[in-house]
C-alpha cells in the first residue's frame, strides 16, 4: 500500500562518538529487562531459605531462584560496619554487606567456606561453584530514615525516598572467573544466562530483595511490636544503587566484539521500528504512556555534577519540545517512527534523541526482543590473519580511524592522559602523562593514537605485502592489527573519539555500559565515577508476572 522506505542502520561514525555513547538510555534490550522477561516468562520460583541475622545486623542469608533446569543462589553476608570504613572506592576493605552468586543451592560446607572468603572480597578466594562476587554499602541518608520510620510504626517519607532511590548501593560486581569464580565458559551456553551479564543482574536483583528484608528486620529489632513492614508500593520504588569508577571504561575498549554486538542490536531494533509503515492506535498509546512516565522519571533524576546538570536541562527541554511536537503530530502518516526520529535528529540534544529512540521500541516487543540472543560474544578468539595484504589492513584502520589522522598527536593536549593500573587493588586510573610518572605503566587504551602510529609504519610497505612480514619487524603494532581485523566483523566495536585527550570524559564510557545494563538516573560524581540506580520500580521476585514485567522501569505504572 505504501512505498517501501529503506531505513539504514545509523553509521558507526554517528553512534560511536563518546558524547552520544554518554547519552544512551536503557531500552527493552537492556540486560535487566532481558533477565526479568525470562524469569517471568519461565515462571521461575524464588525462595528465601536462610535469614540468620542478629539484632546488630550481622549474619547471613540465602535467596534462591529456581529455573526450569537450574537454580542460582545469592549468598549474602551482613556486617556491622563502622562508619569510618564505609567507602565505595575499589580500595575499600570492608562493606555493609557482601555477596556471592552460587551455582545451584549451597550446602552448609559451602556457606562455611564462603563465610571465610566473601566478606574479604578481593582478598579472599571463591571457587568454580561461584559465579559472581559483590558488595554493597548502605545509603547512610536513607537507611537511617527508613529504619527509624518503620521502627516507629510509620512509612518513610516519599520525598526522601525518591531523592535517594535506594537503601544500598553496590560497587564492584565481579564475574567471569575473577578471584577464583567460575569462568564464563562454564555457563555461557545456558540459555538463561547466555545474554550478557545475566548472572550479575540476577545477583543485583536478589540483592534488592535481601536489602528490603534486612531493613525491615533492623526496624523490628529496634521497634519491636511497634514496627511495620515497608508498604509494597514504597518498596517497589526502591532500586539498588551502584557506584562505578574507571574499571568499567577499559572494558569497552577491551571487548570490541561485545560492544559491537550490543550497539548493533540496539541499532537494528531502532531500524526495524523506523521501517514500520503504519502504527496501530494501541502502539501509539503504549508509546505515549511510556513517554509520559519517562517524564516523571526525568523529573526525579537529580545530579549535582555540572555537566550532567546541563545535559539534564537539555533533556527536559527536549521532552517539552517533543510534547509540543506530538500535540500536532499525525501518527497516521506512513513511517511515523522514522518521521519522529528524523525530526529529533534536527531538533533534540543527544540525550533527547537517544531517549526517544529507546522509547519507540517500547510498543514492539515482538519485533525486537528476540534480538537479545545476539548480544553475547560467541565468536571465540580468532588468530591474526597474517596473509592479509598491508593495503587491506590500512583500509580497515582508515575506516575506523580516518578521523584520528587529522589530530595533531604531537600536541600535548591530544595525548594529555595515560590509562594505568595502580598496584593498589589493581585499580584502573587515568593520569596526566606529562605531569605524573605513569607513562611507563600505560595500558593500551588509546586505539586511535595507536592506529595512527601503525598506519604511518604500514604505509612504508608494499600494498601487497603480507601483514605477517610487518609484524615480524613491528610487534608493537600487533594489538592494532588485531583490532583492525576484528573491526571487519565488528564495525561498531571502536569508539570514534580520542580516549587520552585532555578533554576525554571517562563517564561517557561508563554511561554507555551502564545504559545497556538498564540503569537509570546517572549521577556523575566527577568526570570519572558515576552513581546509578538499578531495578527501581521492578516487581520483587515473588511478585513477577507477565503483566508487570514489561513496563516496570517507567514510574507510575497502574497498580
Amino acid at each position, binding site marked *: 500500500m505504501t512505498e517501501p522506505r529503506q531505513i539504514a542502520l545509523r553509521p558507526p561514525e554517528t553512534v560511536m562518538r563518546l558524547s552520544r555513547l554518554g547519552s544512551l538510555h536503557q531500552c527493552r534490550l537492556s540486560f535487566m529487562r532481558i533477565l526479568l522477561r525470562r524469569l517471568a516468562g519461565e515462571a521461575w520460583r524464588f525462595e528465601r531459605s536462610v535469614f540468620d541475622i542478629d539484632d546488630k545486623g550481622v549474619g547471613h542469608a540465602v535467596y534462591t531462584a529456581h529455573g526450569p533446569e537450574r537454580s542460582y543462589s545469592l549468598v549474602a553476608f551482613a556486617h556491622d560496619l563502622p562508619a569510618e570504613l564505609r567507602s565505595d572506592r575499589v580500595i575499600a576493605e570492608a562493606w555493609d554487606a557482601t555477596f556471592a552468586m552460587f551455582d545451584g543451592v549451597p550446602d552448609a560446607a559451602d556457606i562455611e567456606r564462603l563465610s571465610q572468603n566473601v566478606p574479604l572480597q578481593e582478598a579472599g578466594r571463591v571457587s568454580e561453584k561461584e559465579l559472581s562476587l559483590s558488595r554493597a554499602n548502605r545509603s547512610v541518608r536513607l537507611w537511617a530514615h527508613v529504619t527509624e520510620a518503620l521502627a516507629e510504626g510509620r512509612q518513610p517519607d516519599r520525598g526522601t525516598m525518591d531523592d535517594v532511590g535506594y537503601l544500598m548501593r553496590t560497587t564492584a560486581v565481579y564475574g567471569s*572467573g575473577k578471584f577464583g569464580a567460575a569462568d564464563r565458559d562454564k555457563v555461557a551456553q545456558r540459555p538463561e544466562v547466555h545474554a550478557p551479564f545475566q548472572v550479575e543482574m540476577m545477583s543485583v536483583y536478589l540483592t534488592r530483595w535481601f536489602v528490603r528484608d534486612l531493613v525491615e528486620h533492623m526496624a523490628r529489632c529496634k521497634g519491636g511490636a511497634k514496627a511495620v513492614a515497608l508498604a509494597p508500593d514504597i518498596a517497589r520504588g526502591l532500586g539498588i544503587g551502584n557506584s562505578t569508577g574507571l574499571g568499567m571504561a577499559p572494558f569497552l575498549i577491551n571487548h570490541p566484539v561485545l560492544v559491537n554486538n550490543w550497539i548493533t542490536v540496539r541499532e537494528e531494533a531502532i531500524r526495524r521500528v523506523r521501517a514500520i509503515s503504519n502504527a496501530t492506535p494501541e502502539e501509539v498509546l503504549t508509546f505515549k504512556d511510556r513517554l509520559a512516565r519517562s517524564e516523571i522519571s526525568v523529573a526525579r533524576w537529580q545530579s549535582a555534577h555540572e555537566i550532567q546538570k546541563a545535559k539534564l536541562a537539555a533533556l527536559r527541554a527536549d521532552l517539552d519540545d517533543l510534547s509540543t511536537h506530538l500535540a500536532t503530530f499525525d501518527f497516521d502518516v506512513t513511517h511515523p517512527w522514522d518521521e519522529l526520529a528524523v525530526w529529533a535528529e534536527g531538533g533534540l540534544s543527544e540525550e533527547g534523541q537517544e531517549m526517544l529512540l529507546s522509547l519507540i521500541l517500547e510498543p514492539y516487543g515482538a519485533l525486537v526482543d528476540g534480538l537479545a540472543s545476539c548480544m553475547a560474544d560467541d565468536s571465540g578468539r580468532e588468530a591474526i590473519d597474517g596473509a592479509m595484504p598491508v593495503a587491506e589492513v590500512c583500509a580497515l584502520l582508515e575506516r575506523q580511524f580516518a578521523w584520528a589522522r587529522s589530530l595533531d598527536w604531537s600536541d600535548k593536549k591530544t595525548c594529555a592522559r595515560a590509562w594505568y593500573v595502580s598496584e593498589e587493588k589493581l585499580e584502573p*586510573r587515568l593520569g596526566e602523562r606529562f605531569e605524573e610518572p605513569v607513562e611507563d605503566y600505560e595500558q593500551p587504551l588509546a586505539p586511535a593514537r595507536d592506529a595512527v602510529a601503525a598506519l604511518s609504519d604500514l604505509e612504508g610497505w608494499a600494498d601487497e605485502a603480507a601483514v605477517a612480514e610487518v609484524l615480524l619487524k613491528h610487534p608493537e603494532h600487533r594489538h592494532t592489527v588485531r583490532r583492525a581485523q576484528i573491526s571487519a566483523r565488528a564495525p561498531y566495536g571502536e569508539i570514534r573519539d580520542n580516549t587520552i585527550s585532555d578533554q576525554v570524559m571517562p563517564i561517557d564510557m561508563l554511561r554507555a555500559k551502564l545504559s545497556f545494563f538498564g540503569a537509570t538516573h546517572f549521577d556523575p560524581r566527577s568526570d570519572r565515577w558515576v552513581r546509578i540506580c538499578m531495578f527501581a520500580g521492578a516487581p520483587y521476585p515473588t511478585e513477577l508476572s507477565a503483566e508487570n514485567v514489561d513496563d516496570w522501569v517507567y514510574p507510575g505504572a497502574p497498580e
Partner: protein
Amino acid sequence: MTVSFNEVEAMAKKAARGAGYAWGMAEEAGWATRWLCARDLDGCAALAMALQEINGTKIRPISFENGELRVAEGAACPVHAGAALSDFAADLRQGPVRLSHVAVPMLLLPFAANVARRIGEPVTVRGNAFEAVVQADAASVTGDIAVVSDSVVVTSGGTLGDAASGAARATPTKADWATLGEFAHRTYAPATEASRLKGAGAGTNDND
C-alpha cells in the same frame, strides 16, 4: 590452589608485558597460556620459564626466510616464534617450517593449533626430545616438551594420539604463579596519595 582460566589469561598477559613484550604479543602470551591450561598442559610453568629465560634481556628479533624462523643468536622466545608461525600459517602448505633453538617449545603448540585451524588439517611439532600433534582444539604430546630444543620442525599432517583431556581449572604451582606475579607486578604503577585521589576521580563524598 586452582585458578580460573580467566585469571590465567589475565596474569599471563600482564606477566608477559612486565617482561617487556609489546601489548599485542602479551595478549598472545595470555591466550596461549590459557589454551595450554585448558588442555591440562602446564602453561603457567611454560610461560614462567620462558619469561625467566628472557628476563632483563632484549627480546631477540625473529626473521623468517626459506621456511626457517630464526634469531641471530641464542634461543628464540617461543611466544614470538609461535606468533610468527601462526602469522605465516599458509606457508606450511608449501613445506615444513623449521625453527632453530627455541626456549620452552610447549608454548608453540597453541600457535600450531592456529595453523591447524587455518590450513584445515592437523599439525605436527617435532623437537629433540618430543613430538606433538595439534588440532584446532586439542594436542597430544609424547616426550619432554618443557625444555629448550635445538631445533623444531613443524609439518602439516599427523595423527592425534591420546590428547590431553581437557581441564576445568588451572592448577599452577605456587612457585610458577608467584614468578608470573612478580613479572605482572612490573606493570602496576606505585600507589601514591595523589594518584589515589586524582587518578580515580575521588574527592567528593562517597559515604552519604
